[in-house]
């Protein structure tokens, strides 16, 4: 009897310790985001006071209005949507083509091609920054959308090609064979059958690409040099106040929340797929 009792209390204590750990972990990972939200809703008089503020006493949306009226932040959002959107679509198309060729077609040099594409994912971006700047300047692409989209495609192709290649390999070859018997060309099979069948893979890969392009900073900082051409990460990094010394932190946090909430929502909705995609991209050998 006693033995069972002590076993049960031991188990209960274990559970309590586990929950304490879970709560500490949650606070650590979520708190900075929470703090940005409360700061964005706090009026300046409260924000710039020397006390710990965990929630606003007089919440206000003023910071959210100011971020759009005092600066071209909506333009920055539009820039990011265009650049990240175009990058996602083009990387998916190019990546699906290359991934299909490597997964399914009988051709020489596959290992070399795949190695070349994957090698790009390990490139230190700063190593090609200067030369790329010169090339884009000669092509008159500095401060244009294509000037940012083109490098972004190259940066994202390793991931899209790799994940889609894995997806295509898992589709039974018999489906393609029966399409071939019905007189379907290989390209048509890819377009009409393989791509629709891999829709879940395309969604996951597209989401990862979109997040990566939306978050990229160094190229955006270097190739987009006008404030109205800034993407969101650059606009937020370059945030400045009316005077040199005081940064409008409330507005800055409002901007941070505006661009983060859609991402967080996407991540929460698609979390299972994202986890699968991340681990497939990194672990699958």
């Amino acid at each position, binding site marked *: 009897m006693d033995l069972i009792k002590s076993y049960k209390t031991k188990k209960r204590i274990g559970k309590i310790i*586990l*929950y304490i*750990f879970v709560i500490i*972990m*949650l606070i650590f*990972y*979520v708190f*900075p*985001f929470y703090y*940005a939200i409360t*700061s964005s809703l706090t009026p300046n008089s409260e*924000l710039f006071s020397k*006390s*710990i503020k965990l929630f606003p006493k007089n919440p206000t949306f003023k910071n959210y209005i100011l971020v759009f009226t005092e600066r071209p932040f909506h333009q920055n959002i539009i820039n990011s949507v265009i650049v990240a959107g175009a990058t996602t679509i083009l990387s998916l198309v*190019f990546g699906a*083509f290359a991934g299909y*060729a490597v997964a399914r077609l*009988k051709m020489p040099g596959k*290992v070399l*091609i*795949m190695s*070349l*594409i*994957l090698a790009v994912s*390990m*490139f230190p*971006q*700063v190593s*090609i*920054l*200067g*030369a790329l*700047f*010169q090339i884009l300047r000669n092509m008159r692409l500095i401060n244009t959308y294509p000037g940012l989209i*083109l490098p972004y*495609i190259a940066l994202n*192709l390793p991931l899209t090609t790799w994940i889609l290649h894995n997806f295509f390999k898992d589709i039974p070859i018999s489906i393609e064979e029966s399409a071939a018997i019905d007189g379907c060309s*290989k390209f048509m099979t*890819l377009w009409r059958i393989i791509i629709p069948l891999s829709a879940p893979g395309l969604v996951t890969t597209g989401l990862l690409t979109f*997040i990566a392009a939306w*978050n990229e*900073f*160094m190229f955006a900082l*270097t190739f987009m040099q006008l404030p109205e051409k800034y993407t*969101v*990460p650059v606009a*937020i*990094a370059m945030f400045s106040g009316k005077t040199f010394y005081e940064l409008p*932190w409330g507005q800055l946090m409002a901007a*941070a929340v505006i*661009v*983060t909430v859609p*991402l967080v929502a996407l*991540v*929460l909705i698609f979390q299972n797929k994202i986890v699968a995609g*991340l*681990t497939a991209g*990194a*672990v699958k*050998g």
Partner: protein
Amino acid sequence: MSTKIKIHYKKKDIWLGFWLILPALLAIFITAFFPLIKTFWDSLFSFGLRPGIVKRFVGFDNYIRLINDTRFMTSLINTLIFTVISVSLEFVLGLITALILNADFALRGLVRAAILIPWAIPTSVSSQMWKWMYNDQYGIVSQILYNLGWLAPGTPILSNKWSSMFAILAVDVWKTAPFMALLLLAGLQTIPSELYEAARIDGASGWKQFTKITLPILSPTIAVALIFRTLDALRVFDIFYIMNKSVETLAVYNRHILMDRAFTGAWFGYGSAISVVIFLIISIFAIIYIRSLNLKFE
């Protein structure tokens, strides 16, 4: 007859494959491989980006100059310190997080989703969020440290070299430990529970189960995750550039030479030499990475 058809099909395959791969190869050649070759070529010259600066061939002089550049050496050491500490902290914290997420508790799915938040936030945004928490007048982290008496009131965390290094490390660990945790969690979930049951019947303690079952089975995943993160940490730019310009990493210093100084003097060739050195350092790690992954495509 039959061989003829086979050859016919193969040729068709090769042509289709060529056209399918062409866009991807063009994109990476124009924006990755060609710039890399150009960077190496540029590193052999002395020139700037402003018109009027005479371009002259200097051979490997730029590389020799690097050895005596204390700012370069400091940024190299900073990067290495950052890499070692951040990757080890992320690993320990990521492993703890993965073990917690692998246990059974209410709302586990929601908690797993919640820890993805730091990963999803753009680094530039999270850098600013933390910069606000570190603000020397009104930041919550500063306030807590002042109240605890660990820091003299009004001390700016981000202006001292070592305190800002630790502050930045905290941000990086916060941002990337979740990613590490998810990789490790995927590995943990492949371990059959029968192994633990058998060990428990044999009377093995929890710690013994962890070191004799969990760690050995998890080690390939751990290796990949560590190398993956090391490559990222060596390239670190965003956090240091935004949070503090007094502690430089290789990438921050390199960009400063290439994009700020190259417009005022003949610095571009020198900056290109730094780029090449960074590329070589990371290549060494990348080769280890490829070897450990043992890539196969058939």
